[in-house]
């Protein structure tokens, strides 16, 4: 327990609480349960993508293509719905997951089999996926009236006071808690990122594990693609432009080490919520939205400086008599 209180997650949670207290002191309406639920719903896409990015970063990679993957999958879903309004949402969901996963696999294969650095691979696929949206849609928008009610309605169906979008984020977060803690693959992400050399000694295939991470990240990006397009009832080339950096920022603020192998799902969740609350609070507390960028930039720098300080390893001790004091 005491070790939890000293952990990054606890400090981040405290920072979020402080933030909420600060906002509520001026705008009590912000912390009303209904509004907090709205903020959570609004942050759900960020949470989903950040979870996927987390496993990628854990394995010492980075996925810059998530936002483009989201947009492409979203556009395909929207166009499919516009052309065949009768296709059930379940099929669209499967399509979104599958398409996203395939795009993630393309990234993963190039990292695994061709050993191309992840940042180069995903920088390239980021522009390619984004460009494909234009090629597919010819630059045209798919608008609300072209989408079926079932299509746009799905993420906002209300279950126990929360929309489906929020429930999906909760469900996926739950799955991640379970999957990371309780499956061999989940533990392999840590092993591969923390000590790739040693991972080989325990029979873990480093490249394959990285491939799996990219696949998961892509799959979530695809899922979010459909949800995003349905929620805002519009699909066009630029949706979620630049979102990949916000996703990486959420992970970094959540304490996921960019060097791999360190960080928790709880941290990512809190990092995403932190950004989500800041984003939603700015218009409410009447700080110009133009401050948002500088605030998240500062948060990233503070978080990374803080994490490197607390994460410094003690190293080994040769002097036997010094061992007791250290």
């Amino acid at each position, binding site marked *: 327990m005491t070790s939890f209180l000293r952990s990054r997650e606890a400090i981040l949670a405290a920072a979020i609480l402080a933030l909420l207290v600060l906002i509520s002191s001026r705008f009590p309406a912000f912390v009303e349960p209904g509004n907090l639920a709205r903020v959570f719903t609004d942050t759900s896409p960020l949470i989903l993508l950040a979870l996927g990015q987390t496993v990628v970063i854990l394995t010492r990679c*980075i996925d810059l293509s998530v936002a483009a993957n989201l947009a492409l999958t979203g556009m395909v879903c929207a166009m499919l719905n516009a052309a065949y309004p009768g296709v059930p949402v379940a099929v669209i969901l499967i399509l979104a997951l599958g398409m996203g996963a395939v795009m993630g696999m393309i990234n993963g294969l*190039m990292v695994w*089999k*061709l*050993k*191309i*650095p992840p*940042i*180069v*691979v995903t*920088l*390239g*696929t*980021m*522009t*390619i996926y*984004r*460009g*494909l*949206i*234009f*090629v597919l849609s010819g*630059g045209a928008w798919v608008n609300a009236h072209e989408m079926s009610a079932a299509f746009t309605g799905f993420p906002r169906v209300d279950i126990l006071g929360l929309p489906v979008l929020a429930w999906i984020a909760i469900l996926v977060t739950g799955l991640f808690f379970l999957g990371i803690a309780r499956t061999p693959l989940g533990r392999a992400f840590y092993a591969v990122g923390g000590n790739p050399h040693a991972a080989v000694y325990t029979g873990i295939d480093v490249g394959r594990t990285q491939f799996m991470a990219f696949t998961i990240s892509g799959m979530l990006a695809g899922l979010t693609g459909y949800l995003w397009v349905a929620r805002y009832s519009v699909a066009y*080339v630029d949706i979620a432009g*630049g979102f990949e*950096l916000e996703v*990486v*920022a959420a992970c*970094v603020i959540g304490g996921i080490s*960019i*060097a791999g192998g360190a960080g928790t799902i709880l941290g990512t969740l809190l990092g995403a919520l932190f950004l989500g609350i800041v984003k939603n609070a700015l218009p409410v507390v009447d700080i*110009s939205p*133009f*401050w*948002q*960028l*500088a*605030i*998240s*930039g*500062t*948060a*990233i*720098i503070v978080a*990374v*400086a803080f994490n*490197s300080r607390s994460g410094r390893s003690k190293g080994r001790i040769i002097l036997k008599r010094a061992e007791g004091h250290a």
Partner: protein
Amino acid sequence: MTDIADHQQAPRRIPDRLQGPGARLLKSWELLLFLVAVAIFTANSFASPYFLNAWNLSDATFNFTEKAMIAFAMALLIIAGEIDLSVASIIALCSTAMGAAVQYGAGTPELVLIGLVTGLACGAFNAVLVTKMGLPSIVVTIGTMSLFRGISYIVLGDGAYRGYPAEFAYFGQGYVFWVISFEFVLFALLAVLYYVLLHRTNFGRMVYAIGNNATAASFSGIRVARVKFILFLLTGLMSGIAAICLTSRLGSTRPSIAFGWELEVVTMVVLGGVSILGGSGSIPGVVIAAFVMGLVTFGLGLLNVPGIVMSIFIGLLLIGVIALPRLWAMWRH
């Protein structure tokens, strides 16, 4: 060839080089890239009747000169094993600082000075975080990327600075001689300077050593942190110079200026044969890559291909040039 002959006469003598300069050139990335550039140039001149026109080609250079200036410094930084993703945001901040100075009646010399100093200051900020505090540069500069542009947004909001002095327009719109623009001359000059710096000085050698193995470089008596500090400063300075040119070319400043350029600059550097993992790459490679990207975008522009479709080509080019040799090697195995 003569070297090997020497070797046979005096068995213990180790030749300087295994291959002559010609053989080395033949195997170089730069030559491959140069051929790609020539191919694109030829294809363009067939595809569009407007391509082979001095003024048009001159206009086309504006598509890459400013980005390439940053790419030179970025190349050194990436060779040394670091990266700076905040360059485009530094442009925004420099431009904002200059725009603010205009409102106080600053003249052209002051503006240039302010642009350069702001760039240096941003570079120094990154440098301190990375070299003094030991933070990973990719995360730090994702942070400062938001921070620097964020400051521009705070200052400018949805407003814009305009009213730059008439002489100031020279940097981005002036021509030195006939169709040769000031920006192109500056680009060429910087290319030569960076070529000399990276390939002909002790400093450049240290950059390579650090990128290949920073620990061993440090164990060889190189002041690694100092070299990296200078590289971040240089990148900031180049962003300042690019900010001057771009602001001059646009004649106004908005916080969204140069949005997304950091990735284009990195793409240019990687396409130029610089290993993203550090340790190898060359300035001629980056220069040719700048031309390749400029030619591709201009050529496709003449065919009225939308910008976003061009980016598919750039993305494919980036992955393709790295993947194809590896696929080839795998296939031959």
